[in-house]
């Protein structure tokens, strides 16, 4: 394999503690190295910024609802297409790009690892087919557990070993990465057109509450010692006043210690917190509670969050929170797709136009940024747009610009139609914090990698780590105009994925050698769970048990993380 040396760049790397010093980065055999031979190809990065490839902890990029989103929104593709290139497939779509575009655009922005945020187990094979067709980036997928009948029944009977055995079995069967929880209990209630909007709303017919589901799965996660913590989208998303539900959910994890051998310190990751930090009791007095929520996170160091920043675009919302999407379509009357999945989950899709001229949208925009600015620990606060829910991932550079530049935020605030009302309902106008380049690197590289239990593999530049390296044409000390930040982060000068140059001069030059990450947790043999699974498939599933497993050839280049929970 080729060797490279990236010379004289300003290097940012929380892993090794380099904060913008001029240094060289060496790549050899796909890994970061101490040194390289004289044959190494030299990349001159003088005056430029060098950092590890970014890790996206939460995006909806592959699977049934993403694809339904593509197929039912031809208008999302209009005039967006980039033709077939020398080494690239044609690629198009704005809020829900094709798999090729997904891989290429992430790579161009310097992202090299992405977690698909919600995999319905029954559709796992579909998720992996798409992942296989997404070039360059390494990907894993989080199966949803928060509305699963097996989980409900074991938890209700307090059978923790059985929960663990079932989780291990499902991760292996679906080639999944960790435990995702979406609207615990509420998505099952949606099977009857109902919902659970607080952590104590009982799930119809299952005699269990969201709080019990979260607590149980959290305990199981630590008992198994999985690389990632539970990854939760709590109840009551998107509703005024929901920050109380959010805090009630977070409380469940208070004081619990992480148990694993991957260097992970948190026991709960709360995703797209922007959607969960709302005050008021109607859209009229709707307001930001970002401060309250962020302060809670600041105090509780065993939790992480991602922002879910609204980017003020026309986009497509999609979530395993079925009742939420139904609620949304009744507000905006746009086309609604829904899929309830037997014994496992629900899901829905609705296009949404975040119009800066609408007060609520502008407040949502402010809340996402406030969370990023109030958070004291960038290693526990990650930048996302909950792609494509609050905006497409291709807007990350814009979000980074807003977080790094008070000027750019103030200009936005001033430009809104309901500027005064927005300023009154939020705290953003008074927040003049500007995140540093190092903090951005913590939020997009080291932090998410650590939360996923991958801190020794991705998100850093220590020798022996995967050689995912990015060079941006930007110098933190010489930024005159905030637009330079967005431009630089939109397309890197060059990007290496596992030591292969995949982007050169802002363009994709190679389809890389993507891998699929999944977690193989070993648990003691459990006959009861085996029997229960057999029985439920016979009686309630529409597929036979022997056709459920995702066979290995759907994961042609796997990166398996083994966990011994025996």
């Amino acid at each position, binding site marked *: 394999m080729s060797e490279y040396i990236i010379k004289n760049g300003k290097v940012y790397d929380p892993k090794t503690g380099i904060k913008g010093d001029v240094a060289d980065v060496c790549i050899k055999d796909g890994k970061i190295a101490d040194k390289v031979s004289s044959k190494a190809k030299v990349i001159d990065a003088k005056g430029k910024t060098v950092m590890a490839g970014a890790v996206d902890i939460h995006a909806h990029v*592959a699977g*049934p609802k*993403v*694809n*339904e989103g*593509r*197929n*039912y*929104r*031809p208008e*999302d*593709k209009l005039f967006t*297409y*980039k*033709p*077939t290139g020398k080494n690239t*497939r*044609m690629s*198009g*779509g704005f809020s*829900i*790009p*094709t*798999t*090729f575009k997904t891989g290429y655009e992430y790579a161009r922005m310097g992202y090299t690892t992405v977690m698909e945020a919600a995999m319905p187990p*029954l*559709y796992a*094979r*579909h998720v992996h*087919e798409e992942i296989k*067709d997404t070039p360059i980036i390494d990907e894993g997928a989080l199966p949803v557990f928060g509305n699963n*009948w097996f989980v409900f029944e074991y938890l209700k009977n307090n059978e923790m070993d059985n929960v663990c055995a079932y989780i291990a079995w499902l991760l292996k069967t679906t080639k999944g990465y960790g435990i995702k929880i979406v609207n615990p209990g509420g998505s099952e209630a*949606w*099977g*009857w*057109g109902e919902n659970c909007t607080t952590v104590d709303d009982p799930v119809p*017919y299952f005699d269990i509450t969201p709080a019990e589901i979260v607590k149980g799965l959290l305990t199981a996660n630590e008992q198994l010692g999985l690389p990632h913590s539970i990854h939760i989208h709590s109840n009551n998303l998107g509703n005024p006043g929901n920050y109380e539900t959010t805090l009630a959910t977070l409380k469940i994890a208070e004081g619990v210690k992480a148990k694993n051998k991957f260097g992970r310190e948190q026991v709960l990751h709360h995703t797209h917190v922007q959607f969960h930090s709302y005050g008021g009791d109607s859209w009229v007095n709707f307001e930001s509670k970002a401060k309250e929520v962020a302060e809670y996170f600041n105090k509780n160091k065993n939790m992480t969050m991602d922002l879910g920043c609204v980017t003020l675009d026309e986009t497509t919302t999609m979530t395993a929170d079925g009742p939420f999407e*139904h609620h949304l*379509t009744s507000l905006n009357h*746009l*086309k*609604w*797709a*829904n*899929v*309830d*999945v*037997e*014994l496992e989950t629900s899901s829905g*899709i*609705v296009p949404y136009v975040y119009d800066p001229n609408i007060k609520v949208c502008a407040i949502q925009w402010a809340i996402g940024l406030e969370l990023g600015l109030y958070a004291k620990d960038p290693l526990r606060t990650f930048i996302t747009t909950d792609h494509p829910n609050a905006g497409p991932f291709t807007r990350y550079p814009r979000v980074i610009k807003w977080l790094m530049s008070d000027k750019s935020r103030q200009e936005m605030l001033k430009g809104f139609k309901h500027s005064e009302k927005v300023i009154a309902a939020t705290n953003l106008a008074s927040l003049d914090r500007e995140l540093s380049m190092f903090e951005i690197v913590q939020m997009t590289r080291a932090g998410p990698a650590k939360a996923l239990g991958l801190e020794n593999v991705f998100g850093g530049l220590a020798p022996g780590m995967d050689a995912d390296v990015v060079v941006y044409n930007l110098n933190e000390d010489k930024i005159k105009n905030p637009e330079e930040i967005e431009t630089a982060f939109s397309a890197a000068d060059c990007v290496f994925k596992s030591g292969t140059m995949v982007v050169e001069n802002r363009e994709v030059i190679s389809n890389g050698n993507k891998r699929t990450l999944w977690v193989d947790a070993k648990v003691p043999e459990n006959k009861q769970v085996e029997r229960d699974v057999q029985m439920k498939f016979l*009686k*309630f599933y*529409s*597929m*036979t048990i*022997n*056709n459920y497993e995702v*066979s290995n050839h*759907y994961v042609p280049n796997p990166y398996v993380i083994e966990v011994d929970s025996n």
Partner: protein
Amino acid sequence: MSKTVTDVICPFCGTLCDDLVVVTDDEGKKILSVENACAIGAEKFLHSSDHSHRVTRPRKLQEDGSFKEITYEEAIEYTAQMLVNAKKPSMYGWSSTNCESQSVGHEIAELCGALVDNTAAVCHGTTLVAVQNVGIPSCTLGEVKNRADRIIFWGSNPAHGHPRHMSRYSIFPRGYFTGKGQKQRKIIVVDPRCTDTSSLADVHLQVEQGYDYELLQALRAAVRGQELTGDIIAGVPKEKVYEAAEMLKSGRFGVIFFGMGVTQSLGKDHNIDAAIMLTKDLNDYTKFSIIAMRGHYNVTGSGQVLGWQFGFPYSVDLSRGFARYNPGETGTIEVLKRKEIDAMFVLGSDPGAHFPMQCVKEISKLPSVAIDPHITPTTSICKVHVPVAFVGVEVGGNCYRMDNVPIESRKVVEPPEGMLTDQQFLEGVLKRVRELKAN
């Protein structure tokens, strides 16, 4: 001695039953019996296993109308040359093959600037258009089995087209919340004619042929408690419309299954649009879903693969190096009628049997290749016929059920000696196209 393969997937209809048991001879060459399948499904397995009627090598149409055997290499060469030299080739079919083959086909189409279209063009394409207009609240078939107490078959006769649908998912099964099976369910059939399915119905609305749209909109108004104009609505007495609306609202979980009776009758996508909106409206009162009764076993898969690769579910035009979509323009029937294409490649479908004659004649005038295990009306008008192994019988691969659930089909017997699979043939063509394009 014999061998038994369990959990076999039936590669026939969109029901995609996955519980078949196939017994083969010891060498895995001949199928001796098929259990659990309906008559149509079993026939598909047994028929394929009878090699006497099969062509096992490619054939080329001669001047005199006869076919002459050629090698697979020659067939690959002809296909690649045809596609590379065309200004706007069409690659149609893709519904009776696996997703792996579809994917290779798409790459060829991308390189050659072709149109890619599947059989939705003649069945549920209108459904896809409706979904693009108004979305689709839906669920998996297991949800229906476990929860549904209101089942509507609209313009669909599963007893005929999807024989095991009623027993596996919709009318008879006992699920988690439906322990009493059929007794717990009310069945409504909407069909101008009396069918095997309507004889099982609690209510049969005999809609006037071609007026489904009016009836659906009237039902929607009735659900909202609005007045209706006229005493007979689209062939159905007004009171019956209100009664039906009440029956739908009073259930706890309802499902509408619809078929070609509405997707291809007057109004087409508008009928489905209104049916979807009725479903959506009903979610304000109870829980309701709607599912298309897709025909070919993997037409759904074709839409999925096209979706993630190009963003559109059928009728995709790649001719300009980027993907465009607009049924009415880019659909295969339209481009044949309007003479917009100059070469035709068919795989996994039989347009010769299902397209209007005007299109069939146009195909017979064009350079053309048909890939199909059988001899069909299409293979007999194409210049080259390439026989291949049966997907789901002689080779596995991924397929998508009518509710978009992916199921990997299984290989149960060997194909006749020396025969290629769809995927192998396409990979040969892709390789050759790349070579030709490089020059």
